[in-house]
């Protein structure tokens, strides 16, 4: 009995000492914090300044593509127009509305940018609640969202068609039987990439036939259904899923795999790197194709091209219009939805949003890789910028010039309107089934 009491007494003594220690820590920490308060960093959007806010979807930053491109555009606009950039990263779907509202309530914010179709419902609700605030949403048309919302959509089907053609002709040149595409969620926006890519493959085979008077080797003899391998991973963030989808494609003899899955799609590059290292290759085939950004620097020598989607230009454009006070006028003129693509214009000025990556783009995006290294603390650039450039140039030169000629021909046809690429985003289920019957 006394022994138990003794232990109890001991215990409370320890607690008392702990208590004193804790109080001491509180006092020291409070004093330290108070001292620090006077030299603290200012908030991202201090009162009196003009700011743009970027609200991400749950996939967040670090994809080296879609989301990072939006921030790139925001950064450039902030620099050019003397604005401050504020970011609101969404961790859960239920963060969309409160994040948009937080930005909307701040009187210093001149434009709220919502990055991605997942925020559509939230933008619709918030924009109606704050009719005086300007909003912009990437990848979603303004469907009665109000006169204060600019929807910016891209012509991904056209860029996908061009890289589909390049992929198919590359497969033909290296005598591979297949090409592949790894996609994120099976939503209308992503279907647009898939159908465009398949259509481009089909166009390329016909072009080859017309040009050389013979069927394209190997891939031209592959049945339509097996020519373009495709897989939806259901995710834009899970790299492992991208890896698992791409691995069997390369094993089945895909010369090129196009990734349309954000961060998840970087798994395609990993699958490629792994099999290339196993075989001791220093350049493709096999290849992969990057998306949204110029990802040619990511696995140099193995990245055939990138189907660029200039989300940065969209953000920059909206910020510029907001600064000039012309945003609502343009929303009124366009009915709320601005299309950026190949050969597109906004209020008479040409603004393009989609293209196939060039060597000039590479310079710009190597810089983005360097910034990405700073952001994630992980090594991203596989070699020095000069080595990357020479490796990419060597890879491009190893391909016959007729591949690039074909791509140019297709692009010019699209630009002039002579060649029409089907847009799966707007298709009914029956139309989609018809195209699948033709394209596989």
């Amino acid at each position, binding site marked *: 009995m006394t022994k138990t009491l003794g232990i109890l007494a001991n215990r409370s003594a320890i607690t008392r000492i702990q*208590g004193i220690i*804790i109080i001491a*820590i*509180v006092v020291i*920490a409070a004093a*330290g*914090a*108070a001292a*620090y*308060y006077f030299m*603290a*960093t*200012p*908030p*991202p*959007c201090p009162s009196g300044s003009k700011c743009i806010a970027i609200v991400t979807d*749950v996939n967040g930053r670090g994809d080296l593509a879609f989301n990072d491109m939006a921030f790139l555009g925001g950064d450039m606009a902030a620099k050019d127009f003397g604005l401050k950039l*504020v*970011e*609101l*990263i969404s*961790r*859960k*779907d*239920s*963060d969309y*509305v*409160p*994040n948009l*509202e*937080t930005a909307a309530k701040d009187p210093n914010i001149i434009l709220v940018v919502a990055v991605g*179709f*997942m925020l559509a*419902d*939230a933008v*619709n*609700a918030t924009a109606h609640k704050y009719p005086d605030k300007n909003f912009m949403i990437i990848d979603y048309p303004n469907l009665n969202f109000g006169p204060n919302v600019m929807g910016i959509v891209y012509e991904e089907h056209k860029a996908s068609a061009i890289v589909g053609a390049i992929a198919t002709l590359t497969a033909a040149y290296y005598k591979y039987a297949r090409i592949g595409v790894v996609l994120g*969620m*099976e*939503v*209308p926006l992503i279907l647009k990439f898939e159908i465009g890519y398949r259509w481009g493959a089909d166009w390329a085979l016909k072009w080859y036939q017309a040009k050389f008077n013979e069927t394209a080797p190997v891939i031209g003899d592959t049945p339509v259904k097996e020519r373009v391998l495709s897989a939806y991973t*259901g*995710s834009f963030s899970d790299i492992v899923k991208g890896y698992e989808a791409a691995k069997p494609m390369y094993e089945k003899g895909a010369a090129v795999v196009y990734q349309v899955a954000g961060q998840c799609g970087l798994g395609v590059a990993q699958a490629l790197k792994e099999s290339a290292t196993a075989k001791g290759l220093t350049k493709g085939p096999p290849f992969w194709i990057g998306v949204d950004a110029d990802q040619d620097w990511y696995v140099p020598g193995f990245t055939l091209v990138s189907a660029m989607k200039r989300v940065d230009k969209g953000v920059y454009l909206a910020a510029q219009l907001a600064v000039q006070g012309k945003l609502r006028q343009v929303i009124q003129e366009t009915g709320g939805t601005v299309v950026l693509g190949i050969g597109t214009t906004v209020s008479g000025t040409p603004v393009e949003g989609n293209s196939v990556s060039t060597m000039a783009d590479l310079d710009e995006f190597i810089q983005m890789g360097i910034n990405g290294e700073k952001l994630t603390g992980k090594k991203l650039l596989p070699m020095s910028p000069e080595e990357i450039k020479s490796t990419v140039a060597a890879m491009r030169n190893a391909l016959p010039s007729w591949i690039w000629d074909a791509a140019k021909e297709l692009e010019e046809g699209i630009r002039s309107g002579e060649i029409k690429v089907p847009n799966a985003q707007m298709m009914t*289920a029956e139309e989609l089934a018809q195209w699948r019957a033709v394209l596989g």
Partner: protein
Amino acid sequence: MSGQLVARFRSVAESGVAVAIGIIAGGLIMLAFRYDPIRAYIALFTGAFGSVSGLLESLAFATPLMVSAVTFAVGVRASLFNIGAEGQAYVGAIGAIIVGGTVLLPPGVHPIAATVFAMCLGAAWALPAAILKIWRGVHEVVSTIMLNWIAFWLTTYLIRTYLGEPGRTERAIPALPTARYPVIGETLTAIIFVTVGFCLLVTILLWRTGIGFELRLVGDNPEAAKYAGASSSRAILVSFLVGGLAAGLAGATQILGRPPSWTLYATLGNVLNLGFDGIAVALIGRNHPIGGIFAAIFYGGLLHGGRFMEYQAGVASELVEAINGIIVIALAIPEIVAILRRRRES
């Protein structure tokens, strides 16, 4: 009586010390990264509770968590480590979509019918784990983890096939306007009254009924319970079923009571982690349904207020999550210690 008072005072004091430790530790981390902890904490708490709209939003975040916490709490009361709330919440959300989105019912009846169906599906999803435990002694951690994954893939499949909204394959059919709970403000709806009421009912069940007494007795001391003639099978079954009803309700709140989407996304993004966050909430609330209500409001405040740490004090969003995590862990420690102590004693 005085012993009970001391015990209660002690648990309150423990929680108070835990809050202080968590906040100080988070503050030190912010100092280490050269952020201003005082401004950050002011931003956190005024953002979460300092305005009517902030408070309403924090309550909206708290609504599902107070019931998903009940799942874990009634488990612990019966000496079970039931972590199946996650999967049961997915299934509950599907139940809410089935009745709320595809069945035509008059307003008033519709939300109630959809909520009840969602809760029943949640309970049905808890049943296999209960039966396996009673019949074969399968550990509930193993069975509930597996059921969580089955629920995840089943729900994803259903959204992409039978329950998908035509033309918008990224999400399921939304709940019809007749099935939605009225909006109070921000994204808070009247379904909070249902979740609070449910917590109160579970409290009455546990402390004012024979079945509740039996459940707690089995949880406190299975051997003694056996001699006293209590049925451990019945206690386990009741614990799982009440937990399933609670988790099903948690899933339903995001469909029938959360603007702007009123539906489930194919990523399950709007119900993901409700069950796991509920475990943390239950631990903070000392595994008491009423403690869970307050813990959920605190946790909801962290979830909502976190964005202001980033927005007003410039704290990197990754660090905001880490600081919130540290506060939550510090708060959960007293209950974890209590659970371990009870285990060792029995």
